[in-house]
């Protein structure tokens, strides 16, 4: 993409905003419809902020790799960049009396959203039919890996570096693990 044409970039951001908005709305509706969950709300223009920062991250962190290869970054880096962008914006806040909007608590709920955005993107691209989405709820290794990953997403220090590559390797391995034939597990 030629960045001297900002109209084109603007259009890309607009499209990505729509995609994130869709995932975010479904996440909010379902989270808040569960009576056991603490109620949450989203800040204004969250999707646009995530989309814009996503482009910023990709430009500044993936550019070098781009020039070595064919001009495309893979789906794992798209997921990784979106997840990190979500954590930079942290769009969710608690909307229920008695719940503390402390930095620590905000990080927890936003890490959950960030991970969901990454999985939604990967599943959407990888599987043509939504009925094929894997659901490895009985695989303890995968659940443990997801738990550890979510914990890491909560607390990585975004002021020091933005680990797009490191994070994308997790998603690459995650997708490899959940799409393995059962006999290979």
């Amino acid at each position, binding site marked *: 993409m030629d*960045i001297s044409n900002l109209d084109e*970039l603007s259009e890309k951001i607009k499209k990505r905003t729509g995609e994130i908005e869709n995932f975010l709305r479904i996440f909010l509706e379902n989270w808040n419809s569960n009576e056991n969950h*603490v109620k949450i709300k989203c800040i204004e223009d969250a999707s646009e902020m995530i989309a814009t920062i996503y*482009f910023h991250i990709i430009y500044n962190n993936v550019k070098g790799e781009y020039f070595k290869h064919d001009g495309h970054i893979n789906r794992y880096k798209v997921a990784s960049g979106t997840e990190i962008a979500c954590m930079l914006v942290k769009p969710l806040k608690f909307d229920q009396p008695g719940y503390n909007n402390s930095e620590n608590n905000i990080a927890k709920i936003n890490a959950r959203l960030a991970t969901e955005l990454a999985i939604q993107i990967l599943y959407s691209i990888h599987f043509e039919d939504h009925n094929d989405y894997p659901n490895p709820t009985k695989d303890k290794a995968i659940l443990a890996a997801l738990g550890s990953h979510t914990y890491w997403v909560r607390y990585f220090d975004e002021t020091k570096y933005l680990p797009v590559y490191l994070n994308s390797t997790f998603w690459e391995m995650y997708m490899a693990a959940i799409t393995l034939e059962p006999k290979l597990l």
Partner: protein
Amino acid sequence: MRSQIKNFKKRTMAKLLFGISVNNESELKTALIKKEIGHLPNAEMDLFENQFVTQEKAKRGNLVINELFAGIDEEMVKDISHN
């Protein structure tokens, strides 16, 4: 007025994404050449455009992820309520 707004958005975007201040598209191009920036990585598989994402997929994805995270969510909600 519309073109002024458009230009403002472009200037803001240039500042935000590339850290450069410009007044118009011509200045932007010059600045990008000086910074030896020609292209942005083509990171964008346009998910909707290529019909990767449908409402059904997004809803199904959310359900699957909710099941995957059931244990983690339960623990997190308890943890938050104790703070």
